[in-house]
């Protein structure tokens, strides 16, 4: 399963970004192998519709789940249309890999 995480850097040790539309990177992680691709978010510089544009990016990357701090309304609607599961509420104090592990653990239970 592909999981997208909003991130402040290009590695699994980077901190989670609480922002969605204007985060610096998306890490697209394959939860089976923990291999990942870091995609820089063009929307960070974008002035119009950054949220939906960011949603478009991770939809086109084939993600099924998104982990982030807060997703705006317009982006949320866009993601829901594409059937992506949104898990909000991660904070900027956790590393991407910890956020991932926490999510996978709660999923198992």
């Amino acid at each position, binding site marked *: 399963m592909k999981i997208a995480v909003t991130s402040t850097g290009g590695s699994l040790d980077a901190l989670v970004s609480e922002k969605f539309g204007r985060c610096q990177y998306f890490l697209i992680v394959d939860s089976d192998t923990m291999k990942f691709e870091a995609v820089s978010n063009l929307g960070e510089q974008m002035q119009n*519709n950054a949220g939906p544009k960011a949603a*478009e990016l991770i939809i086109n990357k084939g993600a099924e789940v998104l982990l982030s701090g807060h997703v705006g309304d317009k982006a949320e609607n866009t993601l829901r*249309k594409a059937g992506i599961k949104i898990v909000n509420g991660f904070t900027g104090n956790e590393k991407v890999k910890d956020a991932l592990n926490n999510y996978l653990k709660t999923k198992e239970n």
Partner: protein
Amino acid sequence: MTISVASGKGGTGKTTVAASLASVIPQSVYIDCDVEEPNGHLMLQPKFTLEESVNKLLPEIDYNKCDFCGKCIEVCEFNALINLKFEILLFAEMCHSCGACEYFCPQNAITEIPKELGKLRSGITENGIKFYDGLLNIGEATAVPLIRKVKAKIDNEKINIIDSPPGTSCSMVETVKNSDFCLLVTESTPFGLNDLKLAIDVVKNINVPFGVVINKYDETFEEMENYLTENQIEVMLRIPFDRKIAEAYSNGILPVNNSDKIRREFIGLIATIKKKIKSNVTQMTQKKQIFAD
């Protein structure tokens, strides 16, 4: 002849001045371009005779033809389209109706369909003023296309008074450009002065001759007087700060209908503006002749 009434700061009395001018000119045309918050109708009380929809064009996608190539997304500078690969999502409020997506679609899958962006209302007042205003639909972001439609009601045979939106951005420029004269309404406060300077920059930039009306005038505010004298800017009318005027306004009564003195002053004002426009026209033709020589 077209006279626009504008101001950098809101609430200085633009609409009061514009409506007062229109009421002292026989058979004038009043055009309210403040389409976000049109108030002219509250002062002039026209009987509306017609209400038309003003539309903007939005892309509609024919999914029998669309292959989700993403060309439309690439050419949209406003990020109004999102490619979900099984649907092209449109954010209508972002769309500027430029038509690029329709033109560049390789599959000819896009047609533009009209969607209402606001209303254009026409009416007439009891004393024969032709009245037009625009009413932007709530939540709509771009006022300029509606302003263009409202401005198209200018009647070149008559004297047109245009009430501009406040500020100094695109809506104000769209309203004021090509006027024969612009009255800038300000008030005797540092806010009024600051915003007057900004508005003067704009009208100079678009080459519209202008004069200043000071509303809620207070002679003790010297900074404004000094600025105006230093820059040789003519004050065409001073309306004193008066609680009675404010109270009448709160009930939608114009000062020209409340005070003979102010009425006479507005009649004088329109005469001066007419003279100025005439002399501007002669100056322009003279200049052209000098060039031709």
